[in-house]
């Protein structure tokens, strides 16, 4: 496979977890909730998929387990952020720490010292060296778009994010719909994490998400809360990530760390150049308490 081909397929591979996480977060933010805990949910998903795949020998089952864990974590988030109307950013940050602690403890308890290689069943590769999750993620883009902009549920969801008081007056249960959106976001985050462990690397490392959850958050903003925008942004970041892996083959005389930092620099640049985020859902991040 030539370097160009490798970079292109690499772009798809690296973009997939970002896209999955971003699509879920897109729904969540359209409903008016900021889920900073996305990173933690991805990490838990990665670990859950590893364990599920090890126990059952079936990597797809691992993905399903990861999605389930994602949903459970999201419900925990919802209990604090929606039921108790605590600050969403605070709860999200704490979720990340909890995820780091839980996965780290479980990993050490089960597999000994950090860094040991954990063999797990891997998702089979199909066309173009991609797993099933990549075309699924790509199909999810128009599906999420259609759900958000062409269905009644999508309209109600967007109302929750723009004017929750008006939505409640129109009969929408804002708390329940936001929780449902979070559950969906959690499932997507879990699957994204599963991709990292069971799909891409065939193992689990502590903190293997390495900030991808936050990049997914940035993708939602850069994509202007539109699934197709998320796809474009995810591909750009995937490209930067893929470039980082192949830097040696490219033979450029630049330090490796520059390519390590590239996805993050690109994120900052896109966000900085993107201008004012005036299309954000109006009630984004504000806890809603039923009157």
């Amino acid at each position: 496979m030539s370097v160009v081909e490798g970079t292109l397929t690499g772009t798809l591979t690296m973009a997939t977890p970002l896209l999955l996480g971003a699509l879920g977060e897109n729904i969540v933010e359209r409903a008016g909730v900021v889920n900073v805990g996305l990173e933690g949910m991805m990490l838990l998903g990665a670990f859950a998929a590893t364990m599920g795949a090890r126990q059952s020998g079936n990597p797809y089952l691992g993905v399903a387990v990861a999605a389930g864990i994602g949903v459970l974590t999201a419900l925990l988030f919802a209990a604090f952020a929606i039921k108790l109307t605590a600050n969403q950013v605070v709860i999200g940050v704490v979720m990340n720490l909890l995820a780091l602690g839980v996965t780290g403890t479980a990993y050490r308890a089960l597999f000994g010292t950090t860094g040991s290689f954990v063999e797990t069943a891997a998702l089979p590769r199909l066309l173009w060296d991609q797993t099933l999750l990549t075309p699924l993620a790509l199909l999810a883009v128009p599906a999420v778009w259609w759900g958000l902009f062409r269905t009644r549920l999508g309209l109600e969801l967007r109302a929750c994010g723009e004017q929750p008081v008006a939505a409640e007056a129109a009969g929408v249960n804002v708390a329940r719909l936001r929780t449902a959106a979070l559950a969906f976001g959690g499932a997507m985050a879990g699957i994204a994490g599963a991709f990292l462990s069971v799909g891409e690397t065939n193992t689990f490392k502590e903190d293997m998400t390495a900030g991808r959850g936050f990049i997914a958050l940035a993708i939602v903003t850069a994509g202007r809360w539109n699934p197709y925008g998320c796809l474009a942004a995810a591909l750009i970041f995937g490209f930067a990530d893929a470039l980082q892996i192949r830097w040696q083959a490219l033979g450029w005389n630049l330090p490796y760390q520059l390519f390590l930092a590239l996805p993050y620099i690109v994120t900052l640049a896109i966000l900085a150049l993107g201008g004012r985020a005036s299309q954000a859902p109006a009630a984004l991040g504000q806890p809603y308490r039923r009157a």
Partner: protein
Amino acid sequence: MSVRSETPGVPEIPAPLAGQPPGETTPPAWPLRALRALAQGLGYAAGLLALMSLTFLALRINPITALMALWEGAFGNASSGHLYPLSETLVKTSPLLLTGLGIVVAWRAGLFSIGAEGQLLMGALSAAALARFASSLPGPLLTLLMILAAMAAGALWGAIAGWLRVRRNVQEVISTIMLNYIALALVGWMVRGPLQERARISPQSEPVPDAALFARIIPPAWSGGIPTRLHSGVLLAFLAAIVVYLYLYYTAAGFGLRVVGQNPEAARAARFPVPKLRMQAMAISGALCGLAGGVELLGIAIRLYDNFSPGWGYTAIPVALLGGLHPLGTVLSALFFGALTAGSGNLERFSGVPSVVINIIQAAAVLAVVGVRAWRARRAGSAED
């Protein structure tokens, strides 16, 4: 943190008054407030103890032996002496305290900076770079310049995120995390390139000249011949807590910062320079975290290396939250986390529990505290209906 008004246009009720029934608008006199704070503190301590016991029980560990092991690891016992464990606790507290203070300043201004880690690294990096290229300077002068460089670098790193927020509306949650990873890559490059030790074996810098290092406070004779690591930089951390407290609660700039955090709209209406105050908050926050990096370099690490920070910047967030986003509360919280960290090694030795379990305790503790506060605010909110 404050009760959100249901009627648009009416400003939010500030947090301290949110829990009081209508009609009582003046806060009680300070002795009563102090007593109330003490009672709350004791309540939190009891709750923390209960939480830790529950966590151990859930992991099928005897909570009593676990807590004893943690205590002895952090504070020592009569037979093996107290000075070494205590000094370790303080050593582990200092970076958490400084970064925690950085978080307090930023979050009090309403900016959810997660960038303490990157700012710490930039502080350590600039101090190390200065040490490398100005190593011929007299010791104390070099120390002072390194501290200033660390604070400046941290402030710059924070100011980048501040500028992005103020001028480009980039959410600081995201920008600070991106900057963290960029700082990490920068350090990784420097310790393998321009700053690497002359022998070029490991990814680490040359050691900081002996004359510039922070002095060890406790003579080895006091701790039975075992040298302790308590260094004078730890005092800087506690000093910083007092300075931050005075700044936030006794200066006009600090007041403006808090107003911007509580209610930016009201601040704008009252002609507070909101963008400037936000930039200041990010710069001060970054300076504190950069200082943390410099202090660690001069006191303990002596060299800059890969994985310089075991996540102090991220742990700083639960530290600050547990401390109620108050500088003095952060002192207590940082001591708690420092004691936990120092004790966790002992915990692992005596009960086989991996030391990472304290991460769960920390997260659960913050979740519980945040949840309780939110629940009480919600109750107070519905009581007003």
